[in-house]
């Protein structure tokens, strides 16, 4: 609101009148009639708090160095999709942002961790062995398949080959981060990749594309996943069959939801149409014909190959 010195008195009056109106509305809405003096301001700050909490997960409380302004915090600006590796930093700020952004997702990962713990327990692994697997492998799908293959004696070759096949998609996901990681040291890049899982890779892509420049986002978000994954494994392995099916609470849908949200942001209009159609078609056909999770790799590679061929056009 513009403040003209001559009409200041008037606008003050006007303002206070409007505030009283708002107060009345506010009070009527919340059923509070008394305290008309202060609720005007309160009502305002409440509505502001509500607006801000809409994108709560993306906000880092207490930091004055948010790269984006209040009004669009947590929103990905579609104009900065092209990476600028020079501005990518690696520090506590990024670790913390990644950790906090990933917490709600990590909670869902915890749901799966409990399921894995239960399965590992049924397969005959001790609590310590299950926890060791979660802490060092950090790749949910391959771990669940591995304990399903588990037998006495352990089919070592089958377990290792399957693990490799299921996790090969991570090579492609890691390679997709390279445009932002160009100027980071090998130790930082490879250290971060250790805790890369599907969920936090998706969140990291989202953050990097927004131009936030947090090179440590993958590490921070990965640590959140790791923490919940390992603790939930222990809980699941100890609890055994006590916990029910995670599908009951919709946990099984979290991964799809994260990827859908990411797809909505990765969409770049017409230029995405061809590679996405290729990826979709190849993945669906491959999922029918090829065992395991090869379809992810095949879909991604097919789209990249088509793009390489189309490059000149």
């Amino acid at each position: 609101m513009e403040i003209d010195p001559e009409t200041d008195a008037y606008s003050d009056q006007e303002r206070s009148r409007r505030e009283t109106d708002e107060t009345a509305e506010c009070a009527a809405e919340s059923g509070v009639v008394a305290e008309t003096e202060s609720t005007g301001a309160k009502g305002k700050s409440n509505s502001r708090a509500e607006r801000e909490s809409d994108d709560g997960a993306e906000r880092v409380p207490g930091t004055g160095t948010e790269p984006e302004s209040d009004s669009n915090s947590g929103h990905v600006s579609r104009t900065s999709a092209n990476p600028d590796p020079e501005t990518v930093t690696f520090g506590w700020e990024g670790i913390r942002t990644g950790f906090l952004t990933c917490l709600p997702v990590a909670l869902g990962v915890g749901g799966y961790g409990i399921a894995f713990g239960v399965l590992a327990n049924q397969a005959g692994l001790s609590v310590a062995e299950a926890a060791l697997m979660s802490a060092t492998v950090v790749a949910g799908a391959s771990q669940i398949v591995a304990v399903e293959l588990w037998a006495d004696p352990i089919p070592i070759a089958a377990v290792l080959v399957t693990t490799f096949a299921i996790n090969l998609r991570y090579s492609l996901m890691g390679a997709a981060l390279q445009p932002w990681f160009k100027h980071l040291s090998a130790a930082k890049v490879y250290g971060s990749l250790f805790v890369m899982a599907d969920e936090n890779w998706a969140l990291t892509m989202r953050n990097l594309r927004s131009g936030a420049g947090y090179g440590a986002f993958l590490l921070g978000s990965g640590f959140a996943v790791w923490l919940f994954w390992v603790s939930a494994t222990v809980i699941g392995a100890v609890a055994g069959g006590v916990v029910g099916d995670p599908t009951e609470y919709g946990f099984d849908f979290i991964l799809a939801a994260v990827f859908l949200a990411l797809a909505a942001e990765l969409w770049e209009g017409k230029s995405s149409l061809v590679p996405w159609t290729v990826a979709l078609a190849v993945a669906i056909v491959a999922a029918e014909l090829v065992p395991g999770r090869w379809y992810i790799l095949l879909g991604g590679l097919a789209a990249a190959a088509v793009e390489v061929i189309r490059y000149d056009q």
Partner: protein
Amino acid sequence: MISDALSLDPLVVGVVLAMAAVTVLTKVGGIWIVRRFELSERFEAGLNVLPGAIVIAVLGPELANGGPAEWGAAAVVLVVMWRTESILLALCAGVLSVVGFRALL
């Protein structure tokens, strides 16, 4: 009982660590290759479509295997994401609606 829970069979530990090594190889392998070799612009164009393509390749079969409840919830996620651009809201809406749709459908 407690000693059972904490027991570590050497063979099991070996297999678990081998799984970890194989997984680390897959996680760092791709970026190790693209960091090592100079990439042509043409190749980088292919690399640039990878994120979207992988997301779609994960989603396609996942949703194709689902039913009306998952499809409905997927639509909810997209609409909430489009309207609010908040991933947290989109996630909550998606999980709540998939539970709701499964109960209803």
